[in-house]
């Protein structure tokens, strides 16, 4: 399993549009992707769950990737977060 943390810098937090883009990105890989905020977890391939975390600017999220392509998936997702959120 690969794991990394990221602090959201976007002033609006994980709002609808980037959440949708993140789901798309996560779906490109077969590995399971879990986003964790404090005690709450969400499947990064599901939009409502992800938005339901209510991640705001300044909050730290942990991303766990597990599966065959976890190496590539973790790198791609980390790059996506840096670029967009």
């Amino acid at each position, binding site marked *: 399993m690969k794991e990394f943390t990221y602090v959201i810098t976007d002033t609006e937090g994980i709002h609808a549009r980037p959440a949708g883009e993140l789901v798309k990105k996560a779906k490109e890989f077969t590995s399971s992707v879990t986003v964790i905020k404090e005690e709450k977890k969400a499947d990064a391939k599901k939009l409502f769950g992800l938005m339901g975390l209510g991640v*705001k600017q300044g909050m730290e999220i942990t991303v766990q990737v597990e599966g065959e392509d976890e190496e590539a998936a973790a790198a791609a997702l980390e790059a996506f977060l840096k670029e967009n959120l």
Partner: protein
Amino acid sequence: MELYRGKSVFGGIAIGRLHIYSKKDLQVKRERVEDAETEVARFHAAREKAIEQLAGLYEKSLTAVGEANAAIFEIHQMMLQDDDYIESTENIIRTQQVNAEYAVAATSDNFANMFAAMDDDYMKGRAADVRDISERVLLILSGQEAGGIVTDEPVIIVADDLAPSETVQMDKSKVLSFVTVHGSTNSHTAILARTMGIPALIGTPIPLDASLDGRLAVVDGDTGQFYVEPDEQTLAKMQQKYDEMQTKKELLQTLKGKESVTLDGRKIMLYANIGNYKDLSLVLENDAEGIGLFRSEFLYLESSTYPTEEEQLKIYRAVAETMAGKRVIIRTLDIGADKQADYFELPKEENPAMGCRAIRICLTRPEIFKTQLRALFRASAFGKIAIMYPMITSLAEIARIKQIVEEVKAELTEAGVPFGTPEQGIMIETPAAVMISDKLAKEVDFFSIGTNDLTQYTLAIDRQNDQLDEFYDSHHQAVLRMIEMTVQNAHKENIWCGICGELGADASLSKLFLAMGVDELSMSPGSLLFIRKIVRETNVGEEGEAVKAQFL
């Protein structure tokens, strides 16, 4: 006449007939079915058709309301493709053996409630999106089509709330204004009204009964008032206000792209004050020649911790690049007094207006100041940035600022990080700074007079105290003379001097400022073209002395 009050999301006047917009009533009944798989298939067929419709709406709104407003239909498509939404609906159909309509409605309620319960206004607003997409699916399942409004003449749309798919399907030339019972300032109705530039009210407690349909009404987006069947007097007054605004609007549009120069050839720079980089569209729309006051506080106030150098750099750079070579004056952190951020943990003060605020915080906590300065110096490699220090009272403060600036530059040089050479100026907003402005002018590149604080400190009147209104005189000679003195001292040292407080937009003083030789006026973007008009109608040579005699 009936009068209601709502919350205005965009100013202006609209006069016209009311059109009550009510959603088609979709009665969803729970029905037991034998063949759940048929219902699952119906659900998917309707869902796919809905996605297809949304793709069409996205294309349509791209041209009608722009990419930013169209994005919502892309999000709606994503929501309909979401595994959570699909699984929940399928699950209800299969486990409860019920019809697709019921399962969609139940799923919609569940997710809408989840969003509505979140402690974030933005996310709360998404509940409406969930209901919107579900209603679309339900309409398709029922064999109906989503509809817009059908009217011959332009109308004032009155509704409980409006979903984005409803507003975008409306023929924009037929909409004078929106008035809704619910909705938030971030709702799509509000955003759309601002994009269209039409008055709109939300949170207006109107009884939505069909008898309102077709009645004459007036929306005053400036005061939030909504008149149904106004009496003659009100109607005449509102008609006059409407006419005046139309004339002004048309006139001001003709001033775009024109120089801000007097009849006898004196130029003045007309800049915009902004409090957030989101205001940039207004800056460009109103043809500002630069940004005279960019309040950097929002970065600190909207954050739950100290904004990092990179975060700040991103914003400053974006503003500098957007303004493409025009001057962008960024005021360093002016927090304290009436602007508080919890994480600064500022001690409670007896007299915060005269307490630890602005440059005083920066000098007592140089690490915060340095982060901002590093971001500013780095950003100035990407555009014409000027840095402005607030609340200056002494030469010693300037000396300390310079010392810190030198440290920052040395650190950046050592780290090999590229940076520019921004102009550095100060705000003149204390009587102390005015009195020593001759000396201060030797030390900095420009002055900008903050008339709000200068007036408060000069007249010893607390701005926040409305009991003192009768003693407060924004045209007090003491303040106006201080402005004149500051301008003269700036010019003696060949630096420029502007005004960025509320007086900058005070049309009754524009001629006086021209006569004093003020080099720049900075104001909220909406006032710019009006002041440009006055400038272009002034002859300083002929009017200057008389205006000075009148005020000073």
